[in-house]
C-alpha cells in the first residue's frame, strides 16, 4: 500500500512542471506573435524557473526588467492596500514608451510598446485560454 502512494506522489511531481512548461511555451509563442504587432518593442516573460527576453534595444534590458518587476510588485501592494481583489494588469505609460504587465498563472509578462500601440489587442491575445 505505501508503495502505491509513493508512485502517485511521484507522478504529481513529474506532471506539474510539465503543465507549466506547456503554458509557458504557449505564452512565448503568443508573445512572439504580439511582437509583430504595430508599435510593439519587445517583451519579458519570466517564471520561477526561466526567463525569456526579446527586446529591440538590448541596452535597455536591465532597466526594463527592473521596471517590469517594480510595476508588478507595486500592483500587488496597491491592490492589497485598497482591497481591490485580484490584479488583472497594470499599464505604465511614459512619454515615449508604455509597458503592459500582467501575471498569467505563474508567468509574469511585460510587453513594451510605443505610446500609441493598442494595449487591448495584446491583452486579448494574452488572456485567451
Amino acid at each position, binding site marked *: 500500500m505505501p508503495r502505491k502512494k509513493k508512485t502517485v506522489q511521484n507522478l504529481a511531481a513529474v506532471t506539474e512542471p510539465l503543465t507549466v512548461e506547456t503554458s509557458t511555451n504557449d505564452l512565448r509563442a503568443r508573445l512572439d506573435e504580439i511582437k509583430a504587432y504595430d508599435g510593439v518593442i519587445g517583451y519579458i516573460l519570466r517564471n520561477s524557473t526561466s526567463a525569456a527576453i526579446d527586446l529591440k534595444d538590448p541596452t*535597455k534590458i536591465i*532597466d*526594463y526588467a*527592473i*521596471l517590469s518587476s*517594480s*510595476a508588478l*510588485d*507595486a*500592483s500587488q*501592494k*496597491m*491592490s492589497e*492596500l*485598497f*482591497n*481591490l*481583489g*485580484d*490584479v*488583472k*494588469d*497594470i*499599464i*505604465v*505609460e*511614459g*512619454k*515615449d*514608451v*508604455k*509597458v503592459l504587465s500582467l501575471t498569467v498563472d505563474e508567468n509574469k509578462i511585460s510587453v*513594451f510598446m510605443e505610446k500609441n500601440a493598442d494595449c487591448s489587442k495584446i491583452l486579448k491575445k494574452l488572456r485567451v485560454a
Partner: protein
Amino acid sequence: MESDVYSFALKETLNEIGNVCPDINNAFVFKENGEVVASDEKTSEKTVTRVVDAFDGILEKADSIGNIEGVTLECSKGRVNVSLVNDDFYLLTVTSKKADINYVNTVTRVIIPTVLRLLEKIHPAPLKSSEVSPEIEPATSEIEEPVEQAEETITPEEETLEKEIKLEPLLPETPVNQLIVENLGGLLVPSDTVRIDKEILSQWEELYEDKKINMVEIETFDGKTTTCKVKPIKDSKYEGKGIIRMPEKIQLTLEIKRGELVRVKPVID
C-alpha cells in the same frame, strides 16, 4: 505644515470630487519625490505613505520609458489610476469596478489641473508660505502713508508698534517636517540617534541663525512623542526622500515601524 493653504485647497477639491463622483473611493496628490501634497478625507495617511512607497520603485526606473505620465492598474474589484498633472504632480484615484471611467477622468483631469494652476497663480511658492506676509506689508503701509500725512497727530510710536505686531509672524516658528520612517541598524549605530536629510538640518539651522541642531522631537500620528539626538543621513540613497532613519529602540518606544509617517521638529536649547 508650511503649505497648509495649498494642501487645504487641494484636499477640499479632492473631497468635492469624491462627492460628485461617489465611485471614487480614494484620491490623493503627490510629487515625484514622494512628498504628499494632499489627500481626501477617506484616505488615511498610512495608506498614502505605503502607496507612494510602492510607487517609488516604478518612478525610480521611469527614465527608461521617458518618465511616468500615467499608470492604470486593473483589478477584479476596481481600478487605480495615476496621472501626471501640470508636469509636477501625480493624481492617484481609486475607483470601484462599476465606475464610469470617462466621467471620472473628465472630472478629475479638468478640475485638479485648474485648481493647481489657480493655486500657483495665487500662491506661487506653495512651500514657502512665510514669504507671503512681507508682500502684504508694503501694501498696507502704502495705504497708511497718506493718512499719516493728513493726520499728523498720529504718533510715530504707534506706527512702529503696528509694524512690530505685523512682523511677529515672521519670527521663526518651530518648523515641523513629516518624514517616513526607515530602519537604521548596525553594530556601531547609537540607539538614541536618528538621521535625517542634511538639507532639513541646514534649513533649521539657517532659521535659527546657525544654531546647531542636535536634538529633535518626534511625534507619531497616535500622539506618542520622544526626544532624541539627530545627525545627517550618510547614505546617499536615502537622501532627499523625506526619510528619517531610526534605530529599532526608538521605533519600539514610539510603537511605529518602517514606512510610517512621523512629525519631526528641532529642539532649540
